[in-house]
């Protein structure tokens, strides 16, 4: 039908070029991570992975508390993900399908606060953490992130579209309480969107840098904080920094390769409604 728009060679050429530039820096980090520092000064530089990767990884774990950092990040991102998925579905159900006084005002407030830069409140949040004596602990990173406005908005959008009101009414007539409805009707229906929200939340939590940097100490860091310590300073050990990068990025890239299609679907779905 419309031939001009089908895969023109130039289209492929452009896309392949862009794909190359998207993937190359990540690939480059693997190359650097698998050589020693001397290889970086060579002209032309090495373009294939070398055999030094595991020796470098060993060095990373010797230099920084990377094992602890990985563990911390798994606990932090895991807890936040489960919590955001659950509370967003709960609140999203109420906003999408239940009628109550103040519903619209509360929903509007949620949407508006999504637009406010988070850094605006960072000083008082830090003061609050000092008051609670949470600085330097994972509570300071986990608790403020247990819920977020985006998640509630996302689940509200999804449930108002995907959850048939008739199904809920049928459950009501059968004498289901709201809690039973949530457990047996809403949760199963919410699963696809909750999964996407979970993946996005995990990625965000895993990659979060600024707040953990502010509130944690160098001896008990998350992965991103440990990585930034590894990669900064006077000594330019690029191999060390980029090996740390590879180790810190690996879990996410694995998730992404396995579930990339769903993540992309989720982002595009959210975009149409957003």
């Amino acid at each position, binding site marked *: 039908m419309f031939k001009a*728009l089908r895969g023109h060679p130039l289209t492929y050429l452009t896309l392949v070029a862009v794909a190359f530039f998207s993937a190359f820096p990540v690939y480059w980090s693997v190359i650097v991570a698998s050589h020693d520092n001397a290889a970086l000064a060579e002209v*032309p530089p090495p373009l294939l992975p070398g055999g030094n990767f595991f020796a470098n990884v060993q060095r990373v774990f010797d230099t920084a508390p990377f094992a602890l950092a990985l563990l911390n990040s798994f606990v932090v991102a895991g807890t936040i993900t489960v919590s955001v998925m659950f*509370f967003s579905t709960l609140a999203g159900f109420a906003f999408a399908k239940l009628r109550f006084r103040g519903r619209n005002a509360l929903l509007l407030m949620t949407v508006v606060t999504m637009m406010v830069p988070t850094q605006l409140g960072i000083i008082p949040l830090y003061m609050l953490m000092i008051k609670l004596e949470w600085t330097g602990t994972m509570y300071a990173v986990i608790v403020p992130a247990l819920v977020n406005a985006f998640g509630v908005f996302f689940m509200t959008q999804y449930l108002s579209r995907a959850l048939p009101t008739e199904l809920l009414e049928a459950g009501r007539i059968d004498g289901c309480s709201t809690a039973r409805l949530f457990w047996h009707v809403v949760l199963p229906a919410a699963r696809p969107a909750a999964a996407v929200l979970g993946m996005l939340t995990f990625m965000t939590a895993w990659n979060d840098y600024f707040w953990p940097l502010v509130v944690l100490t160098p001896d008990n860091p998350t992965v991103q904080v440990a990585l930034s310590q590894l990669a900064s300073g006077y000594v330019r050990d690029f191999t060390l920094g980029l090996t740390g990068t590879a180790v810190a990025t690996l879990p996410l890239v694995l998730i992404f390769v396995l579930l990339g299609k769903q993540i992309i679907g989720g982002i595009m779905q959210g975009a149409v409604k957003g």
Partner: protein
Amino acid sequence: MATPPGGSVRTVAPSPGGPPAAQSSPSGPSGTGGPAPATTASGWRSRLHRLDRQASPYAYVAPFFLLFAAFGIFPLIYTAWVSLHDWNLLSSDNPFIGLDNYTALFADGYFWNAAFNTLSIGVLSAVPQLLLALVLAHLLNRPLRAQTLFRITLLLPNVTSVVAVVVIFSQLFGRDFGLINMVLDWLGFGRINWQAGVASSHVAIAVMIMWRWAGYNALIYLAAMQAVPKEIYEAATLDGASSLRQLWGITLPMIRPTVIFTVIVTTIGSMQIIAEPLLFGAQVSNGAAATGGTDRQFQTLALYLYEKGFRSFEFGYASAAAWMMFLLVVVVVGFNYLVVRRMRGGLDV
């Protein structure tokens, strides 16, 4: 809409008031027979049911709002209060000083320097990024081989963390061993000390931001483009409109809400840039991290806020900077919104 089932249950109860049900509920378990226990049991149940219907919605949004109020809303508002004080982490006495922090801020050259850097890096990263995203989405919006592979590769940079991005690109932009300088040298342009100059450092940071976000925005545009009816393109193709003309003449006007959405989100994001300059400076020295380079050549507003708040712990002053930053975000977002809306007239076919 939700009233029918609730209403029908309510009519079963003899009286909707409290006292009758309360009186009859003790007799319920004893079961004196006849229709009476049935009515009382259902009366008790209907009360419980009504309570469930009325209280549940609040119970369900409560966890979100309680946590959000404590760790989201409260700090936002409290910032304004702190900004009116001479508030320092180390001093026990925090006197009220009115708008003095704001007056000092307006006279602070470093603040305006940071504001300029933020706008400069923002323009340099956002405009090419969104244009590129638009073209990419346009190219992907057709039956292609390896469609999924292209999409996944485009989103790969977005999965990479900010720290990883800056570490990788700092190596690529390195003065002595960086791949980019190596290529420039080979092409005969000479090496650039990327961190040293205002323009070069802004370009380097903008490239990092672009690399991380262009693919993400392309997917958002693609999602919107797929909702545009294909017949329009077919008609335009028959009329001999080129692919690029179709992008500007048809696609862009049709996906305008999404364009406005991405412009707003990207603007808000680029006004808050902090990790990139912080880590880019840390490659030079630890001292150059919070100042955004040795001469503050790439210190953004958020980084300025970080320096004041978490290096010298001047909470009051940093809070004033946060509010000014917020005002600037509102102004710039409003301005961009008006610009994008005005584009409407020029783009209509």
